[in-house]
């Protein structure tokens, strides 16, 4: 187009040159043409040729005189350079001046491009290598030369650079020509053109990068594989002698550097293909060379055994130089390493010299330690492969060849060693600060460990499987990881080990870890325990794990006791530490006692029962704990009962109960507050309707009477509301209505008493025994009156008065809610009529809760606590008196419960020294008497108590016995109360003769 406007002598010639023009030039003219070209002067007119004319001349020669090819191309370099200069100059001067010149040259460049591309199209085999080399070289030269220009962006901003150069006609034309060549050449000799590209890239890097990037993204698939193949060849020819020396990587292998650079550029958009290529290279290098069957790929490196052997070191080197590439490959590489591949790899590497293998090993170790992702998989793979084949443990994959295994073993050891160095050198650097503050300092990062931090749990699980060598490696790794990650990881690790260990051997790993770490990390165990507690709070643990954790902690603490017995080892200090740590968190463990899973609660109680108690603790925590432990106690009893009923093995539930007992007693001994709380709650719990059946009790209603089952009570058809309506609004019923309701509705007969269902008397007895044991332990071990170690260990400690008082008070509160007439001293017997209601209630309570009598006995043992039960005793005695008075039976044995109650009551009062021994003994005779006589004797008791009030101040502490005693001699004469007894004795001397000595004053 622009040719038309040019004018000039060459116009005609030029325009006719498009296709078959050369024939138009005679030999003579050509000779002239060559002369003009060489001299730059028009041979005919003798004037100097302009740049454009000169270039046109060159193009004509290119078309007609093959021998001028080289010279013409060389000349054109100058033209292109000129154009680029002008282009940049125009840019710099904002295109103000000579834009025309640029466009003039631009058409020349178009022309040259047209000719070249026509040539390439017509005969790619001849022209493509030539033009590609020329174009690449020229591009390199141009981009280097003009890199310093003001408008040229910095070489690092690849996109801007690309934009600039692609907007310049000259460079764009060169680029297009090169692309065309490459497209043509890929078919038959792709290596050559990529070689040239690489060479130029090396020479003109980094200014040339934009070319490579552009070409690369135009031919991603081929360029990548070619670039790799070229790199491999170069690597191979350089010899892999110094491949291990990473330090001088910059200066040494030039091509691998540019390979890395190019692939790095391409990685942004073609990471997938790069990865595929790398993996393909790896795989193909392993396939044993079969010269007879060439692979489908046209590239030749597969054919050479030497190159094949070099492929793996080359890839390693490549990966070492570029984290990007490494990251792309590493994840899938591990998947590829199946046993057959490993065998191939082994056979391939066997041929390499020892030194080279060592270098490769070092490189691989370095890479693994620097790998930011997939570390866990790599580790698993290494450990799997390196673990010796075992008869017992058969891995998921068939065990590989022994040689492969050894290789992996070695690699793993090296890796650990390397990591060890990394980790400890690193902490050396951070030595200055304390361990705690070290984490704040910037530290060298080891990506492998960094990634594994999140896999601590799995690692721990793997380690705990205790598979042969494997757990040793992993344990070592865990140590490193803990040191690397600082306290947080160490804590996590320890915590995981504690959670996951299932037996002492496994638990020992945790101790080993701690032993290793304790030298460089303080406060590890408290932190670990705190971490465990945090996990408990966040409910991240399964019940099973939770249980295991608790048991492990318990075992740890218990080991302390064992150690104390045996020789003191390194472990003991840790056991102590754990004990201390756990004791600090007792209140956090407390709620677990009531965990829905029995296993968890059992484990908790075990832990709590053996853990030392904190030196100080807030009352709120203590109360919570005590409540929880008491509740658990009842739960444990219930579970034991259920287990017994189901015929299961009671060992576990039994153990839980005993642990619970132990816990309660230890806890009670901890402080007056806990003692009081526990006793209170024990008594309340025992009487609580939910627990009543444990102790043979029946569920009582408000009035203390046993509830009828709903089916029975429904047909009663009476309601208080109805009654009230019927009787009007008057309120004064003088108690009669209530009485009626106690016994039944008038006109409907007596209330149906529910049959007392005592499913398991022996269970009840056992439960009561346990409860009593607990109470006794609590009361006797209490620290209320200082620690009195008994002179004889076989003899139980005396029950503490204060503790007994607590029991007594609680008991009274529960049994006798009515506080009216609650004073301790007794009124005359007749006054009992005013308290009939209450008395009946009390009596029914005793009926419903057989456990009350044993409780009373406990109270009685803790003199003078029974005084505080005065109201209850009085109520019970009053109802008994009225019963015996009303009874028309022939013998007292005909009312067995009343007989028993009377006996127990009197004996209790005797034990509690509310009665002198003479009076207290009367219960022995009850069974032989008739009801009236029983009443007489009971009346005597009443009279005595009325006369000698049950007041605590009447008791004095006798240090020799360690308990309070009442001196009855201070009270009034007993004899006048004894008279009825003697009368009864006389009357029934035939039956009571053997008892007479019991009533001697």
């Amino acid at each position, binding site marked *: 187009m622009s040719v038309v406007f040019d004018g000039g002598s060459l116009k005609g010639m030029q325009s006719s040159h498009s296709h078959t023009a050369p024939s138009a030039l005679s030999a003579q003219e050509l*000779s002239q043409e*060559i002369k003009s070209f*060489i001299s730059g002067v028009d041979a005919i007119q003798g004037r100097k040729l302009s740049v454009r004319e000169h270039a046109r001349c060159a193009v004509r020669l290119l078309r007609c005189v093959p*021998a001028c090819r080289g010279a013409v191309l060389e000349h054109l370099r100058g033209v292109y350079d000129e154009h680029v200069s002008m282009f940049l100059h125009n840019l710099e001067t904002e295109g103000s001046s000579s834009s025309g010149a640029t466009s003039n040259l631009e058409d020349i460049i178009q022309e040259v491009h047209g000719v070249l591309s026509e040539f390439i199209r017509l005969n790619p085999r001849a022209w493509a290598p030539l033009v590609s080399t020329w174009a690449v070289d020229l591009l390199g030269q141009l981009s280097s030369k003009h890199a310093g220009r003001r408008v040229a962006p910095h070489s690092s901003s690849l996109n801007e650079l690309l934009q600039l150069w692609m907007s310049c006609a000259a460079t764009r034309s060169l680029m297009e020509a090169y692309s065309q060549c490459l497209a043509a050449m890929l078919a038959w000799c792709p290596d050559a053109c990529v070689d040239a590209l690489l060479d130029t890239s090396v020479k003109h890097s980094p200014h040339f990068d934009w070319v490579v990037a552009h070409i690369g993204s135009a031919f991603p698939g081929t360029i990548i594989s070619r670039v790799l193949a070229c790199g491999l060849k170069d690597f191979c020819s350089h010899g892999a002698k110094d491949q291990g020396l990473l330090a001088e990587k910059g200066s040494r292998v030039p091509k691998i550097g540019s390979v890395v650079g190019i692939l790095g550029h391409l990685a942004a958009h073609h990471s997938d293909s790069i990865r595929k290529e790398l993996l393909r290279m790896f795989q193909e290098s392993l396939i044993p060379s079969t010269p007879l069957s060439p692979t489908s790929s046209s590239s030749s490196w597969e054919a050479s055994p030497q190159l094949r052997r070099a492929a793996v070191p080359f890839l390693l080197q490549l990966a070492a130089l570029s984290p990007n590439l490494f990251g792309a490959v590493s994840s899938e590489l591990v998947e590829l390493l199946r046993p057959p591949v490993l065998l191939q790899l082994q056979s391939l590497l066997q041929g390499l010299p020892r030194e080279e293998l060592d270098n490769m090993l070092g490189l691989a170790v370095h890479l693994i330690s620097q790998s930011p992702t997939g570390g866990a998989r790599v580790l698993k793979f290494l450990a799997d492969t390196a673990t010796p084949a075992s008869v017992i443990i058969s891995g998921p994959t068939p065990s590989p060849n022994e040689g492969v295994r050894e290789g992996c073993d070695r690699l793993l050891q090296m890796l650990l060693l390397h990591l060890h160095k990394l980790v400890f050198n690193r902490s050396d650097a951070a030595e200055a600060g304390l361990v705690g503050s070290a984490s704040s300092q910037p530290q060298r990062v080891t990506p492998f460990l960094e990634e594994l931090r999140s896999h601590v749990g799995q690692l721990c699980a793997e380690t705990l499987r205790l598979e042969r060598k494997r757990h040793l490696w992993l344990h070592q790794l865990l140590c490193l990881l803990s040191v690397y990650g600082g306290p947080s990881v160490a804590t996590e690790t320890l915590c995981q080990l504690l959670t996951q260990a299932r037996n002492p051997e496994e638990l020992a790993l945790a101790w080993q870890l701690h032993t290793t770490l304790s030298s460089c990390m303080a406060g590890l165990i408290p932190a670990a325990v705190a971490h465990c507690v945090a996990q408990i709070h966040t409910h991240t643990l399964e019940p099973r794990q939770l249980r295991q954790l608790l048991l492990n902690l318990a075992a740890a603490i218990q080991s302390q006791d064992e150690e104390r017995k045996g020789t003191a080892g390194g472990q003991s200090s840790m056991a102590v530490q754990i004990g201390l740590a756990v004791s600090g968190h007792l209140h956090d463990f407390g709620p677990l006692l009531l965990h829905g899973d029995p296993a968890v609660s059992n484990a908790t109680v075990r832990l709590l029962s053996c853990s030392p108690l904190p030196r100080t603790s807030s009352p709120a925590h203590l109360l919570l704990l005590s409540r929880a432990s008491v509740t658990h106690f009842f739960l444990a009893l219930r579970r034991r009962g259920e287990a017994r009923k189901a015929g299961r093995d009671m060992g576990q539930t039994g153990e839980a109960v005993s642990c619970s007992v132990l816990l309660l007693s230890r806890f009670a001994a901890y402080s007056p507050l806990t003692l009081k709380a526990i006793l209170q709650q024990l008594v309340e719990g025992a009487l609580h309707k939910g627990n009543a059946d444990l102790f043979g009790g029946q569920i009582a209603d408000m009035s203390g009477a046993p509830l009828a089952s709903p089916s029975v009570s429904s047909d009663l058809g009476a309601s208080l509301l109805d009654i009230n309506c019927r009787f009007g609004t008057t309120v004064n019923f003088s108690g009669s209505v209530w009485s009626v309701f106690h016994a039944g509705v008038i006109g409907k007969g007596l209330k149906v008493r529910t049959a007392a269902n005592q499913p398991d008397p022996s269970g009840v007895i056992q439960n009561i025994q346990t409860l009593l044991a607990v109470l006794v332990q609590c009361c006797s071990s209490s620290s209320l009156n200082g620690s009195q170690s008994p002179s004889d260990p076989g003899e139980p400690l005396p029950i503490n008065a204060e503790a007994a008082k607590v029991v007594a008070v609680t008991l009274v509160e529960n049994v006798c809610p009515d506080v009216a007439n609650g004073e301790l001293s007794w009124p005359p017997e007749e006054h009992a009529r005013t308290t009939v209601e209450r008395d009946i209630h009390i009596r029914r309570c005793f009926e419903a809760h057989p456990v009350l009598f044993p409780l009373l006995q406990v109270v009685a043992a803790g003199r003078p606590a029974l005084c505080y039960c005065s109201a209850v005793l009085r109520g019970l005695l009053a109802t008994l008196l009225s019963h015996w008075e009303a009874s028309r039976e022939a013998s007292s044995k005909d009312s067995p419960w009343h007989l028993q109650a009377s006996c127990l009551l009197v004996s209790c009062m005797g034990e509690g020294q509310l009665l002198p021994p003479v009076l207290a003994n009367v219960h022995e005779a009850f069974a032989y008497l008739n009801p009236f006589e029983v009443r007489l004797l009971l009346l005597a008791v009443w009279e005595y108590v009325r006369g000698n009030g049950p007041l605590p101040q009447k008791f004095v502490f006798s240090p020799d016995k360690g308990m309070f005693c009442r001196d009855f001699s201070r009270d009034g004469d007993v004899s006048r109360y004894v008279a009825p007894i003697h009368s009864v004795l006389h009357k029934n001397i035939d039956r009571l003769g053997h008892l007479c000595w019991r009533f001697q004053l």
Partner: protein
Amino acid sequence: MGDIRQSLLPRDVLSAAKELLYHLDIYICNMVQSGRQPPQVDTKTLDLIEEFILHTPKDRNAPVRRMSALQELQLLEIMCSCFQEQSRDTVRQLMFSALFNLQGNQADESRMALLSKLVSMAVAVGRVPILECAATWLQRTHRVYCVRLAQVLVDDYCSMVPGSGPTLQNIHSASPRFCCQFITAVTTLYDLTSEELTPPLELLQMIVSWIQDDHRLVLITFLNSPLSGSQPLSSLDVTPLGGLIRWCVKAPLAYRRDRKPTSSDGSSDGAPDAARLFSALHLSVLQVFMLLPTILNEKGLFGRLALLQMESVAALTSDLSRLLDQADKHTHAATADAHAASQLALDRLAQALQVAMASGALLCSREDLRAICSRLPHNNLLQLVLSGPVMYYNNIHTPPLAYSPHAAHSPIPSHAAIPTLPAHTPHTPLATHPASHAQYPAQPFMSGMPFPFRPGH
């Protein structure tokens, strides 16, 4: 001459080369004038040439001087005009040999490169003297290098630069000697054994048109060379006849083989064209053979000089039998096409052998031929040629053969013996047809008469 080295050293590469050329010219003129025999350039001069024109480093320490492509072009231009302006053939020849005769050293590579460029350029700008010199060079140099030169020219003019073929075509008129040597080199180069070694169609066209235009072109070297027969060892053949016969005979098979992978689309473009060209070439070759008896007799060499070497014929037949075997193997159910091609090849071989023997270009007995051709498959014509009487013609006026357009269809041997030589008939196994000879009486064969060519049966 050696003393100018010091003055050349500080000069830039181009002017040093220019100056050396200048001095060389003078030196050789002096040498020729002094009449020293034999005119030989001394080694010092050769060294200078290698150092300053070919830029071969003399020792390791010397910096490598290298000309840029532009400078090289200038040098070539200077050389062109230098040879052009030198009026004396002897001087020119000596200078050319001094520059380009191979010395068997490391400079030979650059020598070849420079020579190739020079010749290529001479072709382009029509420098006859250089082409003549190059023709002589081609006669004296080992064939490997000749082939390389030919390769460069073919690449340059037939493949690299489209539309430049006509330029090469002109060498026929510019320098027939060079043209003849070029054909010989090209036929040696392209032995049709692989795709790369198949001549480009353009080249083929060019050669066919050259020979068709002037049959004697093929023989020019032979005609111009002295009778001494002092051919350097392993140089090119005196004539391209052997190579041309090889082309014609192998072409049907080679081109069929090439065509096979692209049979779906490419069957129409090159192959029929090439087939037509090769049959024309075959005719021309046979016609050239027909010229030979006269020439040989003129030189008194008839029956004494074998223009067609027995060894090359043997190589050709063994090649051919291998090719035919391969063709058989590739196409088990031999298509009619394949069969026709192989028969065509054998026909051509038979014709060429017969005519060559008859014209005195091939000196051998029929027993030798039979031994050579024993492995070839059956072909009627070949059978006849092999079993025919041995005939040497001393009388050039007696036409050696009588060709019949019906030859292939008749049972009568096409080489029908001349009745004047009945004594030979008992040798032929086909003695049962002696009468047939009479049917085709001496029919004088005239050069230029259209040859009844049959592409197949």
